[in-house]
């Protein structure tokens, strides 16, 4: 037994995943982690043979970020399939402690190289099992080793196809980075209004829908000249309402990376995808943000009018928590049931359609079961207020 294990350890001496980052790549890497941390709490890692995929999703599952790091991003990158040939290595770690390692002000200036590795049971000692090992080689021969616990998990992916979107635009981050600065800092949502020849950013609040004009809060609108765009191709009028915080995250990431930001979208209620890419083939970051479904369309979809506002339904929420709503909304749940199979599992915000797969076109990723159980996912999300 021991001999066998030894033989195996020699064969598999190389860890299943090993990536070495140079000092120059550390800053963008830290920025990527910071950006992911603004959206979610967990970092899902997929070590594929030809790329490292990092992703996260927010608690309400309305925003999903997927960063693909190509081998060119690293000094060296190698990954092999799982020992039992179950496909690429997949695991998740908490973002906060990971970020803490790279956050220290001096770390980006004193680190000479950084090695990330995921050992397996065979290649490592008992204490190193299920750890993401980060070795920082600093100046003056100082070595810092961090071993973070990880949990094996199924990959978390959203279903979206950028190419199937009818509308897209691309703009330099130099022009887009201050778009949101003029909006009230506590504003939660923003409406992107696009048409053939215009683009407007407008503050969105539920109060504005109310009949009583005195309850309306401050409205802000920003008009962007379509000539500013590198590419602007919008087929019809679209008004997408998305979270301002997530939108800010996208714009500040593009600004930090100094790369243009591209948007792909279809219609209100379907997700908008922002992409920031560093050519040639260094990394790609996709931000998939759910957009708010307009109230009128909601009615159409459901074929009911009165029940629509109560469609918060919380299908997946244990009935003891929201018994009343569960009952009331029951008849209107059915139309959404099919939808839910495609969206990220158990999207808790039925007002948003969630991250949704188009019926046609090639799907880049398949959906999978989330690592956490349903109750945990749903629990902390408050039921969303419906339009009355």
């Amino acid at each position, binding site marked *: 037994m021991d001999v066998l294990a030894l033989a195996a350890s020699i064969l598999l001496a190389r860890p299943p995943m090993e990536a070495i980052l140079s000092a120059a790549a550390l800053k963008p890497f830290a920025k990527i982690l910071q950006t992911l941390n603004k959206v979610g709490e967990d970092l899902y890692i997929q070590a594929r043979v030809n790329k490292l995929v990092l992703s996260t999703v927010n608690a309400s599952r309305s925003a999903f970020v997927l960063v693909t790091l190509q081998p060119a991003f690293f000094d060296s990158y190698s990954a092999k399939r799982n020992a039992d040939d179950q496909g690429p290595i997949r695991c998740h770690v908490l973002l*906060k402690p990971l970020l803490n390692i790279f956050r220290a002000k001096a770390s980006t200036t*004193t680190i000479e190289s950084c090695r990330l590795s995921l050992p397996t049971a065979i290649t490592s000692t008992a204490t190193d099992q299920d750890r993401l090992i980060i070795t920082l080689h600093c100046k*003056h021969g100082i*070595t810092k080793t961090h*071993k*973070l616990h990880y949990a094996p998990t199924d990959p978390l992916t959203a279903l979206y196809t950028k190419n199937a979107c009818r509308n897209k635009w691309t703009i330099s981050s130099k022009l887009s980075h201050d778009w949101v600065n003029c909006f009230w800092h506590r504003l939660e949502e923003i409406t992107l209004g696009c048409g053939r020849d215009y683009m407007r950013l407008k503050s969105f609040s539920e109060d504005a829908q109310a009949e009583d004009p005195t309850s309306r809060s401050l409205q802000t609108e920003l008009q962007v000249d379509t000539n500013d765009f590198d590419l602007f191709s919008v087929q019809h009028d679209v008004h997408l309402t998305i979270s301002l915080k997530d939108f800010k995250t996208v714009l500040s990431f593009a600004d930090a990376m100094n790369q243009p930001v591209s948007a792909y979208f279809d219609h209100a209620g379907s997700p908008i995808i922002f992409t920031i890419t560093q050519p040639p083939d260094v990394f790609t970051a996709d931000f998939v943000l759910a957009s708010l479904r307009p109230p009128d369309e909601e009615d159409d979809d459901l074929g009911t009018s009165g029940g629509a506002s109560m469609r918060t339904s919380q299908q997946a929420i244990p009935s003891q928590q929201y018994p009343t709503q569960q009952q009331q909304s029951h008849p209107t749940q059915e139309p959404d049931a099919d939808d839910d199979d495609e969206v990220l599992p158990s999207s808790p915000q039925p007002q948003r359609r969630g991250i949704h797969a188009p019926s046609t076109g090639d799907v880049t990723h398949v959906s999978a079961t989330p690592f956490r159980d349903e109750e945990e996912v749903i629990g902390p999300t408050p039921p969303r207020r419906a339009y009355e």
Partner: protein
Amino acid sequence: MAQDAFLSGRSTANASSHFKGKLDNVRSLVTILKAISFKEKANCVINRQGIQFIVEESKASQARTQIRESHFREFLFPRSRLGSPNGDDSGDIDSEICFCIELPTLLDCLTIFGGTSAIPYSLSTGGNDGGQRGHGGFFGASQIQDTQTGGLGKDRDRVAVRVICPLDGDHLSLMLEERGVVTECRLTTYNPEALTDLFSTFAEQRMVSKLIMKSDWLRDAFSELDGTSDTITLHISPDAPYFRLSASSLAGDAQMDYPKDTDVIESFHCLHPIENHYQHTLLQSCLKALSLSSKTSIRVNEAGFLSMQFMINVNEKDIEFVEYLISPIADWENE
């Protein structure tokens, strides 16, 4: 300065029974007090050597700092004890004023004019480690500082302080003067707290290892350690890995190795390998002092007690030390 005459005029009223000290710049006092202000109350001891402050945390760690007599512009400790005005010299060698004082209140009084910037002097002069940190905020800060202290502006923003205290330590009077504006503060004192004499206990045991390292590297190490870890382990040995800091937390383990003979570790002495465990919370209380300092001397004795001495450049020429003494977790194996 006319105001000075005013100050001294007031304080000479009953010179014999009061301690009087004058600092040209209150900043040095503020800096060292900030370095130990992790607790509300501090014991203050005034004797012929200077003014000393001691703070204790759960009888397991202590911080001590002092401004030496030589750093004062004026330092007048009454030659005789209270009640024996013309007593013999031998009697008052050990005489000292001892009381307990609230640190936040004292700091509030001393910074009443503001202006005592939070930027420690060592950082504001910039480049104390070969420019490795010479970026961003620190550069900006150093430029501002240079213009403030340069030329004639040097004395302008300086706040002088006169400390007056009766021999029984009944109260503490502070007179602060900035550009002719004088503020007088009178602070109530408390009876001194009974402290364990950790410092002399520490000195009784043989020193096993001693090293001096750059403070900013140590600070980075502490900031990288996860806040959820309960204990921090210090491993010092004459051979590799020489100096190792490690901690485990909910998220995982961290370990940092520092080889000797580098720019980071200036001197390294170790008799035999030692490994001791310390409470993270106790170590955290020294973070303020650590971030103000430029160099740190780390000593560990046979019993595992850890002494960290922080060298703080309080102004252009003066250096003050803040010393922390932390007891190890005894009986680690049984934890």
